[in-house]
C-alpha cells in the first residue's frame, strides 16, 4: 500500500503533517511520538527578528474548540536556523518552515535567510488574526495575496505554500490570487476570528480580545473551503482545520486535500498524529484502496 504523497515535487512518506503554531519546532512532541513517522513537521511561525507575542491570557477553551492569541511569539530566524533547524534535520521527515512578518520586507528577509538551509518547504503565513500589522491584513485582499506571493517566489529557493485565511467572503478568489502569484501550493484553513467573554468578570477572556478559533468545531468550514479551493486552482492543497481523527483527515483528502495538517488535536492527545497515520492506513486496507493518493478529491466519485 502506498502512503506517499507528492507536493510540488517533494515526496512525503505519508500525508500527515503538523499545523504551524501547535507543534513548536517538534522538540516537545518528540518526547511523545517518533517524528520520523510524520509526513512533515511544520514549524511555529518564524520572523526576521524575535517577537514577544501578545499579553496573557493567550488561550481560551470554547465548545469543541479553542481560541488562541499567542501573537506569533518566536525566537527569530537566527536562533531558529542555529538551534531548531539542526534539531529537525536529525529526523527522517520533511521540514516546512512557517514564515511570518509585519511587512513584505520581513517575509523576504526570512525567506532569503532560509535559501541555503535544509528546508523542504516554506509556508507563508498571511492569515494570522492575532497580530496588529501583517498577518491577516495580507491575506484577505486578493491583489495583496498575489503580489506578496510573487515577491516571495522571486527570492525563495524552496517550494512556497501560501497559508490562507478562512475569514473571507470567497476563498476561491484568494486561492486563485495565490496561484496567479506563482505559489507552489496552498494550505488552509488558518483560524477563524472569534471572541470569548467571561460573564463573571464581564471581561474578555483573551488579553488580545479576539483570537483564532480552531479545533473540531471548525472542521466543516475547513472541509468546505478545501473543497472549493481545490476545485478553483490547479495547485496542491494542504487541508487543515479541526482534524482530530483519521476520519477527519480522510474527509479532508476526499474534499480535495493532497495532504493534511493536525493542529489543535495535539493538545488533546499528544499521540494523535501517530493514530491518524495508522488510521488512514487501516482505512485504505479495509476499503481495498492501494494508494492514498486515490483519496484526493474522490468525494462523489
Amino acid at each position, binding site marked *: 500500500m502506498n502512503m506517499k504523497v507528492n507536493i510540488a515535487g517533494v515526496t512525503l512518506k505519508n500525508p500527515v503533517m503538523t499545523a504551524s503554531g501547535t507543534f*513548536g519546532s517538534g522538540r516537545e512532541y518528540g518526547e511523545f511520538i517518533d517524528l520520523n513517522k510524520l509526513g512533515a513537521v511544520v514549524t511555529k511561525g518564524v520572523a526576521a527578528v524575535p517577537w514577544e507575542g501578545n499579553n*496573557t491570557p493567550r488561550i481560551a477553551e470554547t465548545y469543541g474548540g479553542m481560541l488562541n492569541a499567542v501573537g506569533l511569539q518566536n525566537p527569530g530566524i537566527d536562533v531558529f536556523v542555529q538551534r531548531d533547524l539542526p534539531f529537525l534535520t536529525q529526523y527522517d521527515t520533511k521540514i516546512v518552515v512557517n514564515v511570518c512578518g509585519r511587512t513584505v520586507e520581513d517575509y523576504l528577509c526570512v525567506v532569503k535567510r532560509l535559501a541555503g538551509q535544509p528546508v523542504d518547504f516554506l509556508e507563508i503565513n498571511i492569515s494570522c488574526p492575532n497580530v496588529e500589522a501583517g498577518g491577516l491584513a495580507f491575506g484577505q485582499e486578493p491583489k495583496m495575496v498575489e503580489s506578496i506571493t510573487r515577491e516571495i517566489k522571486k527570492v525563495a529557493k524552496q517550494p512556497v505554500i501560501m497559508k490562507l485565511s478562512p475569514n473571507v467572503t470567497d476563498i476561491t478568489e484568494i486561492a486563485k490570487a495565490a496561484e496567479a502569484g506563482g505559489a507552489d501550493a496552498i494550505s488552509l484553513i488558518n483560524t477563524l476570528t472569534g471572541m470569548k467573554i467571561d460573564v463573571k468578570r464581564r471581561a474578555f477572556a483573551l488579553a488580545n480580545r479576539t483570537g483564532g478559533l480552531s479545533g473540531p468545531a471548525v472542521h466543516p468550514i475547513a472541509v468546505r473551503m478545501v473543497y472549493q479551493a481545490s476545485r478553483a486552482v490547479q495547485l496542491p492543497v494542504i487541508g487543515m482545520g479541526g482534524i482530530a481523527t483519521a476520519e477527519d483527515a480522510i474527509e479532508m483528502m476526499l474534499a480535495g486535500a493532497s495532504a493534511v495538517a493536525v493542529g489543535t488535536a495535539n*493538545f488533546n492527545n*499528544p499521540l494523535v498524529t501517530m493514530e491518524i497515520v495508522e488510521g488512514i492506513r487501516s482505512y485504505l486496507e479495509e476499503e481495498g484502496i492501494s494508494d492514498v493518493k486515490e483519496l484526493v478529491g474522490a468525494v462523489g466519485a
Partner: protein
Amino acid sequence: MAEKFREQAVIIRQEEISYGIYSMWLKTEQIAAYARAGQFISLYCHDGSRLLPRPISICEIDGLDCALRIVYRIAGKGTEEFSALRTGKQIEIVGPLGNGFPHKEKKALLIGGGIGIPPLLQLAKDLDCEKQIVLGYRDELFLKDEFKKQGEVYIATEDGSYGTDGNVLDAVRENGLEAEIIYACGPTPMLRALKAYAASKQIECWLSLEERMACGIGACLACVCKSKEKDDHTNVHNKRICKEGPVFRAEEVEF
C-alpha cells in the same frame, strides 16, 4: 530530557475535603515514579466538548504504590466532571510536567494561599530541614492537619475565623517568622507581595506561577510569563510556565 508519559490513570479514591475542593488519589503506571513536588499533571476530560487538558498541581506522591494525589477546586465544567469520578474510573493524564520546587537545605518558609496550598504538601514532606508552614484561606480550612505532621503551621484567614485575621504575610509578621528561603504558591497578588517581601529582606524566594495553558508541554507558547532576562529558549523576555516553570526564582519573573 525529563520523562513524560501519557496514561490511563485509575481513580483510587476521591472525596470533597472542603466546599468545592476535592482530593483525588490516582493510580498511575509510571508518572508517580518520576514526579517531584511542585510538578503538575494534565488531566483530560471525557466530554468531547472540552478539548484542553486541565493542569493540576501534584499534592502528594506515593512512589512505592505509583500513586499521585491532587487536590483541586471546581473552577468550571472540566473540574466538575473530574469531581464526579468514582473509584475505579479511568482518566487520561499526561505528566509529570514542569520543573518542580528545588530542594535546598535552608531554614524554610512554605507559604500557600487557597488552592495554591496543595502543591506545598509534598514539598513539606520532602524537605529535610527546619521549616515553617504558612497557609492562607478565605474561610474554610483544608489540609491543615496533614501539614501539621510536617512542621509548625501558621494559619491566616481572610474572614478572621481562624488564626491570623488577614493574609499570609500578616501571619508571617504576626508570628515573627524568619527564614533563609521561601517556597510559595497561591494567587497572583499574594505572590507579588511575597516577591516584594523577599526582596526587601533579601531572602531567596521560589514562586509557583499559574496561567491558562493549552498543550501543557511547552509547544504552544500560551502560558508564558514575562522574564527579567531574555529566556534561553524563547529568545525573548518570556518564559514558558509549563516548561521552564511553574516554579521560578522570584527575581527572574515579572507578573
